[in-house]
């Protein structure tokens, strides 16, 4: 893959021995590659071929065609195992899958951003689901939660990891009973909370939280009161977190919460049925709370952006922009033009579109 974060170094002229060594490595690699592809072409799906494939992938996990070879060999081994009596065949298939999952572990740790490895692992688990009794395949999927938890501890923003986690949870819900499924959402909610607690800047975890809240309320068939309670808890939480108002992730979470008060999208949020007066009240409280954050952080552009956003929402809910609000917005805007020169044109455009 493209090189990321690798420091540039001055080229050192290679000695003839080093050159020779490199050529030898190329020869070894090419000959392994040739052997493997010949065997697969002849449909020699043996343990020896699988070993060659493993060697090759350990040297080069980005070689997607070889992952496909591996799938072909495994499919063959699964179908061979299927020839035995049922109990025996299940045991054999489970063993094959288990061994393969173990093979993937060190690769995933060394190359956590390699699409093909994550991808192959999912395929393997789908095979478990296809070929094994429910209880057994569930066990395999369940263990993936532990694995992806470890991976996200190593890099808490790895989007492969987060995507994988969503898929694993999704599948476990399908494989479990409705009760198990509901408790799963609650557990994931706790997990996201833990990850946010470990690093407030982790927007991946905040994003996950936005999705889980909707899920949780839906699964609990929450009443409007319960939904309002959730909203208030979230507002309290984000206000506490915003003790550091310079963190962009927090403000994107805040922006997400404000959608609850936007009549255009409220129906898709955690509290869809607030009345107009409730929305206005929440927004006014919000504007007041955010204004207090300015104390000692007058140079924080995000605060002005949020104030403008909330005030515009007031006008959207109320149906028009009052003269006072308009004047307020213009004064915050003049701060923004000073504080945020990178996006000056955005603020000028915004000024032009502000209703009179």
């Amino acid at each position, binding site marked *: 893959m493209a090189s990321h974060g690798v420091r540039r170094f001055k080229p050192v002229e290679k000695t003839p021995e080093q050159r020779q060594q490199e050529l030898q490595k190329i020869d070894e690699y090419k000959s392994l590659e040739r052997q493997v592809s010949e065997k697969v072409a002849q449909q020699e799906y043996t343990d020896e071929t699988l070993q060659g494939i493993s060697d090759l992938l350990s040297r080069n996990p980005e070689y997607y065609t070889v992952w496909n070879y591996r799938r072909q060999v495994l499919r063959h081994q699964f179908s061979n195992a299927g020839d035995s009596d049922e109990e025996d065949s299940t045991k054999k298939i489970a063993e094959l899958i288990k061994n393969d999952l173990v093979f993937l572990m060190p690769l995933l740790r060394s190359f956590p951003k390699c699409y093909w490895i994550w991808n192959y692992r999912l395929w393997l688990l789908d095979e478990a689901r296809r070929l094994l009794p429910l209880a057994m395949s569930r066990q395999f999927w369940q263990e993936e939660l532990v694995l992806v938890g470890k991976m996200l501890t190593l890099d808490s923003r790895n989007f492969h990891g987060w995507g994988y986690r969503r898929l694993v949870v999704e599948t476990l819900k399908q494989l479990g009973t409705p009760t198990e499924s509901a408790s799963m959402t609650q557990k994931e909610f706790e997990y996201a909370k833990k990850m946010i607690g470990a690093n407030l800047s982790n927007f991946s975890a905040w*994003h996950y939280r936005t999705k889980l809240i909707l899920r949780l309320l839906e699964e609990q068939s929450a009443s409007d009161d319960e939904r309002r309670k959730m909203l208030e808890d979230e507002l309290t939480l984000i206000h506490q977190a915003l003790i550091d108002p310079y963190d962009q992730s927090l403000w994107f979470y805040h922006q997400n919460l404000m959608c609850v008060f936007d009549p255009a999208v409220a129906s898709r949020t955690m509290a869809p049925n607030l009345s107009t007066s409730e929305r206005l009240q929440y927004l006014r409280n919000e504007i007041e709370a955010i204004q207090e954050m300015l104390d000692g952080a007058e140079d924080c552009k995000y605060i002005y952006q949020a104030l403008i956003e909330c005030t515009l929402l007031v006008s959207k809910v109320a149906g028009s922009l009052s003269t006072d609000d308009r004047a307020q917005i213009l004064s915050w805007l003049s701060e923004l033009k000073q504080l945020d020169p990178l996006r000056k044109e955005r603020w000028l*455009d915004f000024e032009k579109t502000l209703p009179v």
Partner: protein
Amino acid sequence: MALVSGPGRAGGISSDQELHTLKHVAYIKNLDTRKDELEYWLTEHLRLNGVYWGLTALHLLGHPDALPRTETIDFVLSCQKDSGGFGAAPGHDAHMLYTVSAVQILVTIDAVDELEKRGLGGKQKVGSFIASLQNKHDGSFMGDQWGETDTRFLYGALNALSLLGLLDLVDIPKAVSYIQSCENFDGAYGVTPGAESHSGQVFTCVGALTIAGRLDLVNKDRLGAWLSERQIEKGGFNGRPEKLPDACYAWWVGSSLAMIDRLHWIDGKKLASFVLQCQDPEAGGFADRPGNMVDVYHTHFGIAGLSLLGMEGLEEVDPV
């Protein structure tokens, strides 16, 4: 003719603000002469992408003929499989990513007719391969027969089919509604429904909507705001909130802003300055960040980003 995609070899840190055009041309041309390096062979799975990145960069640098045309066509066609799709290199399996690169290369050097003359089943066959990867149920696209789904593949499919004039082979309305299901409240898009917004995915989704003629579905002010917040103090773009900047986002973020007419919402001068600092002024090529190892991927996207910003000495690039 095939280019290595791996890291470059040289050192030196650029503090000046000049585009080292000839160094970059030489860097790209030399990529194919590095068969005595293990890296060349370890990056074979990117070969066809590498050719596309190198070729496009050369076109933008005003040296469209720096790679030999006939050999390029021969190499592209040697990557085609019976299914009509293309692999990364001869012998590699067909996949959407390389099929798109193959089409893009052939269009760039005006050689699509070679598909009819020497390809397997002409452009129609290539189109059918791509169309066969659409999920008829939800409109998404897979990368290959093994099922990985990602908005990258959806964009790739629409891009290649539109270049071939074969968009009618797929269900565009379904693809469009799949993209909408990947939209988040911040106005940006993720890799699948429910996924966190990501600049690379914004490019694929907005690009696909542009091709489909459905930019009206984009919340341009909201998305424009999110994209413009990718620019950080030093001038570079990051791909998501609170992440490090990377030269390639000059393209992913910049072109997305251009497609929704909001490119002026960021500081182009500061962005260009960041990207230029990512050059290797001695051996050519661009890296992700100043002082890092260069590669053809960042070279292509760095140059494309600069072209988007109207940098003098570069041909103008189409943001889609």
